[in-house]
């Protein structure tokens, strides 16, 4: 049986209480949501802290109102919310193919947004990391994926929810020592496999807010992996568009799981506003996405192949938005 390191477990009842508790630890703590990510890392001895603050007993994190979703909601709760899935249909398949049904039972929305970056060199036991050679993110001093990198980690972003929220134009609401702040999810991530985002350590993801007009967007999430269940994405593409007939009025694109954060491809998207969503446009967008993605060898499949798959997944996302039938994973509704 794997051993969890010793830690103190705090179970605050409110966000304020949790933030205050976090401040008292001088940074040596982790928030615990569903635990499906954090506890694996702890069992592997990756960056464990002496204090764990559970957010599972804070009612205000489980609130849900229209397009405003509490960070503490479990993925299974979202999956069972027919109103939510009706309004934002791209989440249906995303959720059905996210990790496994058991992980979704306890895994939370905020947990998936914040899911730690992953890497074949990182997600190993302490014994294995010693044998493999330590990696920058866990034990230092050098990245194993990009040899010689001592300041940047190249572990892969592996969350499925964030790309979809991004193309729906969501904002993320954070609560911290200085109160609440809200920012577009597209500005939340920050390119480094260790720090990953702009959230201060004590800040808590209170909610994801979907704008009202997101309901009229057409969106698609295309996740590439080798098994229908369990697997993190080897790469994924999220796209959304507001269409005027077959003319693109708005376009959003995210290439995910090809870098340490989901990549917001606003420059590519901007090029195609006003264009007709025909095969030629789809090929051009897919080609741009292909060129802009530079995966590294941090996952199972080789980076060159994953880069090609960005093209294929982009094509499928745009075709689905156009209303074409696209290959859908077996039995994934």
């Amino acid at each position, binding site marked *: *049986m*794997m*051993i969890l390191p*010793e830690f103190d477990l705090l179970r605050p009842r409110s966000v304020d209480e949790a933030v205050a508790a976090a401040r008292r630890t001088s940074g040596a703590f982790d928030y615990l949501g569903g635990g499906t990510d954090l506890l694996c890392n702890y069992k592997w001895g990756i960056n464990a802290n002496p204090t764990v603050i559970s957010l599972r007993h804070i009612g205000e994190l489980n609130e849900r109102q229209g397009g405003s979703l509490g960070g503490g909601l479990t993925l299974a709760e979202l999956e069972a919310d027919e109103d939510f899935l009706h309004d934002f249909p791209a989440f249906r398949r995303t959720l059905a193919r996210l990790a496994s049904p058991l992980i979704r039972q306890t895994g939370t929305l905020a947990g998936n947004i914040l899911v730690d970056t992953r890497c*074949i*060199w990182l*997600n*190993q*036991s302490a*014994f*294995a990391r*010693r*044998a*493999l050679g330590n990696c920058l993110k866990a034990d230092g001093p050098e990245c194993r994926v990009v040899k010689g990198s001592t300041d940047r980690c190249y572990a892969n972003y592996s969350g499925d929810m964030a790309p979809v929220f991004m193309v729906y134009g969501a904002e993320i609401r954070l609560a911290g020592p200085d109160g609440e702040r809200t920012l577009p999810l597209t500005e939340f991530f920050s390119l480094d496999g260790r720090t990953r985002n702009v959230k201060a350590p004590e800040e808590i993801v209170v909610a994801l807010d979907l704008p009202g007009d997101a309901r009229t967007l057409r969106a698609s999430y295309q996740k*590439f992996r*080798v*098994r*229908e*269940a*369990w*697997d*993190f994405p080897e790469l994924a593409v999220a796209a959304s568009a507001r269409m005027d007939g077959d003319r693109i009025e708005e376009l959003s694109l995210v290439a995910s799981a090809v870098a340490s954060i989901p990549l917001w491809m606003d420059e590519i998207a901007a090029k195609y506003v006003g264009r007709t969503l025909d095969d030629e446009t789809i090929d051009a967008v897919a080609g741009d996405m292909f060129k802009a993605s530079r995966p590294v060898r941090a996952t*199972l*499949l*080789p980076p*060159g*192949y994953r880069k*090609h*798959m960005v093209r*294929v997944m982009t*094509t*499928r996302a745009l075709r689905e938005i156009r209303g074409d039938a696209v*290959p859908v*994973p*077996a*039995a994934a509704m």
Partner: protein
Amino acid sequence: MTQDFKVVGSRPPLVDSWKKVTGQAVYGDDVRFPNTLICRLLRSTQPHARILRIDTSRAAAMPGVRAVVTGADAPARFGVLPISQDEEAMATDKVRYIGDIVAAVAADDEAAAAAAVDAIEVVYEKLPEYFTTAEGLDPVEEPIHAWTVDGSNVQKRVDQHFGDMDGALEQAAVKPRAFFDFIGVGHAFTEPHAVTAVPEADGRLSLYTPTQVPHYVHRALAKVLDMPLHRVRVFRTAVGGGFGGKSDPFPHEMCACLLARRTQQPVRLTFDLEEIFLTNRGRHPGTYDVQVAFDEHGRMLGLDAAAIIDGGAFASFGVVTTYYNGVLSQGPYKIPNFRYSGRRVYTNKAPCGAMRGHGAVNARYAIESVIDMAAEELRIDPIELRLRNVLEPYSKTTNEFRITSNGIRECLERVRDETGWQGKKGKLPLGKGIGVACGFFISGSALPIHKTRTPQSTVHLQIDIYGGITAHSQGAEIGQGSDTVIAIAVAEVLGVPLDFVRVRSEDSDTAPLDLGAYSSRGCFMIGNAAREAALVIRDKLARAAERLTGHAAGDFDFRDAEVFARSDASVRVSYFEALTEALADNGALIAKGWYQSPRMGGTFKGAGAGLAPAYSFSACIAEVDVDLETGLVKCTAMALAHDCGRALNRLAVEGQIEGCMHMGLGQALLEEMRYDRGRITNPNLLDYKILGPFETPDMKVIIVESEDKEGPFGGKEAGEGPLICVLPALGNALYDAVGYRSRQLPVRPERVFEHLRKLRRAEAGMSKTWGATGR
């Protein structure tokens, strides 16, 4: 025996399944004794290094630590095969792979044990590291073991030649040849190894372990602990999956016992899942260079094969594997000329061993692939080509295997007819394909590992005054249903319901010898032993019935807990009346039955390898759907016909065949033990990818019953053989779908994708220009 069976051929739940569905089954880590210490192991982080110094003093002095042992405490070597005893409880002079055990700690709890392991200091001197077979074929600077061939890392060489292979190649109309490369795969059972060693008050030592081979563990323990065999006891717990991965005596079993003896407290050791992968004994990676010769009529003239298999750091079953890679290619086709060269090479990686379909799986993939290549060249339908070459029942192979019952023809015909092959082969659109392959496997190794005249299986029966029948056996129930085979055999012969029979197969103190669950020997050997024992009891009951009725004993039949005369239905006594009479002035009704393989085989070197009292046969058809944009391959349907002689338990046979399809497809599509310079990089079940319910296709099971004359009620194995044809059927279907012949396993989507890109650029474009097989 009449063919009108009562229990045989029915679909009873496995007799041990009730314990499993209620959580009552006791697996390795469920064993609980008071005052138990917890053991953890220090493993080498070096692939190949001399141990200069081990300092355990700091660890031994830590709070809660009760004992620390190292290799010096038990230097005797052991191994599952007497001819290759190259393992140690813990490394003595040097470590040979990352994961090799260096020291073991017993402490009051898991955390204390883990802390102590971290506190052990080992000073290594690095040695040259060998990660490929290629670098070990010739003499090397520092052979991994001292007894290799001529200072190389070659552990075992096999060279066989029957007939005139060069002549066959000269005569051949077609002779496709191909080179294949297989990545290693692991058993990936869900129950991590977990043992408890208990020092008994009378000085004996008991080991509770989820093992497939209690007898070999018993022998190895006695040797390493330097204790007489009768002072050791092996208790097989419920086994949470074996597939060959729990069929070696293991170093960690020795460690737990050493610590228990040292501390005089029970010691429990449970692996982290990662340690399963470090312990390995999975299927050998390796290369297979194969050429097959056919004449213009599609008659097979010969097979020429060379295998180089990567053994990892220790021998395990490797000598057998080296033979099996060649000799198990002798069926299911008649091959007049045959040449085989096999090499097993040590490398500084986790040791490989036996895994479901031992030694026959990768070789079969290669052979069935080149047979398909030949079919294409000859423009003969692949099933027709195979049918022209199958061995006949009750015949002999070129290397003198005695073929008994053989349903291969029916297997092929039925998968063909029940999948609509004719309407699909060569007629499916690009991206969709169908493929066929055959399999052949031993139904129990005829040669025991230890040369002895002790029967390979013995079963004891005793009937109590309440009518219940206790069967004692050391047959290792690992979920395959061997306990149920015993119960079925006894219930069938004695005409009682299945629940009259209890099987006790855990404890070496009460079990008569059985060699365990490997080489698919259980059904045939244990089944026969149980049947023999039951016949002895039946005879006694019949004579008791004769005393009660005056009717001749030989005329009695047994059914529905009644003993009745075949010639006169009015003459009958109940089972209980017969039993009471049989027990009168007697005291106990006990019997034994045993099985030993008949003498067979040739006299040439290595003639014993692959001999079996019977062989199983199978044929598989796979259908695939290739995503033309991504290269991802999905198996959409699979039909598998398996000749198991007779299905003693149809439910279990179906389950074994379905499990084989699942596991075989896993290796074909996704599974691989990934290494980076001797380091396993995916030792967990997220990254080692077992198929889930969505990757498992619709599975059609076809049971073919050739009724083996020597098998119990006609039965043969069904646990391993069906896996073998799965991989090549998938490979051949993939070729039919997109024209890509995967010469590596697993099939990698990126390689299929590259092939599809080439196809797109080619002149013919995205259309099928291959696989037209002259129909």
